[in-house]
């Protein structure tokens, strides 16, 4: 059981199945919410935007943005929220094929010293409306 509940809420984008779709070159924005159920000894909280490949091939990845949204420990019962907005690149588009898939995601990472990080990965689709 994680000590922190993490949530990502998108402001824009079109719902596409279970994910949100954003156009290449558009802005992805929303809010990150952290709800510590207990005090957490953390160094910082990071927000990372990027893509990676999945499937048969060795994983390839690209990091587009990484920002520090909080520093220091998280206190029990004190929620934290952060509004974000990133300009998305024009490529690569999200893709699901036979051997290769390209997955876009936002990742929230609670970086803890001498302990396993707590993270939330929120995938989304980077594609044109076709």
């Amino acid at each position, binding site marked *: 059981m994680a000590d922190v509940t993490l949530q990502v809420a998108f402001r824009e984008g079109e719902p596409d199945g279970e994910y949100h779709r954003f156009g*290449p070159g558009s802005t992805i924005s929303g809010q990150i919410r952290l709800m510590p159920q207990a005090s957490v000894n953390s160094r910082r909280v990071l927000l990372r935007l990027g893509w990676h*490949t999945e*499937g*048969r*091939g*060795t994983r*390839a990845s*690209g990091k587009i943005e990484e920002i520090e949204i909080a520093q220091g420990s998280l206190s029990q019962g004190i929620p934290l929220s952060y509004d974000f907005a990133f300009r998305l690149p*024009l*490529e*690569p*588009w999200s*893709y699901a*094929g*036979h*051997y*290769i898939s*390209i997955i876009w995601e936002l990742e929230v990472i609670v970086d803890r010293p001498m302990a396993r990080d707590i993270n939330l990965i929120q995938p989304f689709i980077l594609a*044109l409306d*076709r």
Partner: protein
Amino acid sequence: MKLIANKNGPRIGCFFAALWNACTILVFAALAAGFVGDFITELGREDPDLGRFLAGNGPPFLILILVALIFLAVGVFLLWVTARTMIAGFRVGTPEVVLSKDRVRVGESFQLTYRQQFKRAAEVQKINIKFYFRETATYQRGTDTYTVHHDVVHLEHQIPGGHFNGGQQFEQRLALAVPRDGMHTFEAYRNQLRWFVKVHVEIAGWPDYDHDYEIEVVPELAGE
């Protein structure tokens, strides 16, 4: 208009590479023979009886000759294969693939012109042109590296063969389109998504001409 490739350069390069390999094999075989000879001489100095036995007509000497013959046979085979390919290249001339657009976008139609000059008379059995999308994934298992492909053919066009005289030119125009729900060209570490036109020409009595021409599809949607 965009010329995306012609084929004679790589073919000649391939021939010289194979010739080089054959020469390397011959030189290596000669060096190996010299090395073994020196080794036998050295052994002979240390043990005259053993040296006399090895330098004679016993089994080790025959094995050495057999190994040298195998090396020679590989070299001759490589030369024969590449010479045939090279001669086929002289016969069918320089193929050209020309696209009607400099950049191809997702969902866009374009025209492909395949042009081939016949330098000498040739009996073409068939010409097959295929437009396809290829996924290429490379992965490691243990110490071995594997590469797998998955092709999705979007258009296949078969042209009946015929007799072509020396100096005659064959030209074929094809209307192609990247599907609107298709993917752009993507290249990352060990993961590739690419579009190709494969040209396969079967010539009676000669090796098939087989080549893939890559078409770069940019991450833009046509008509936007």
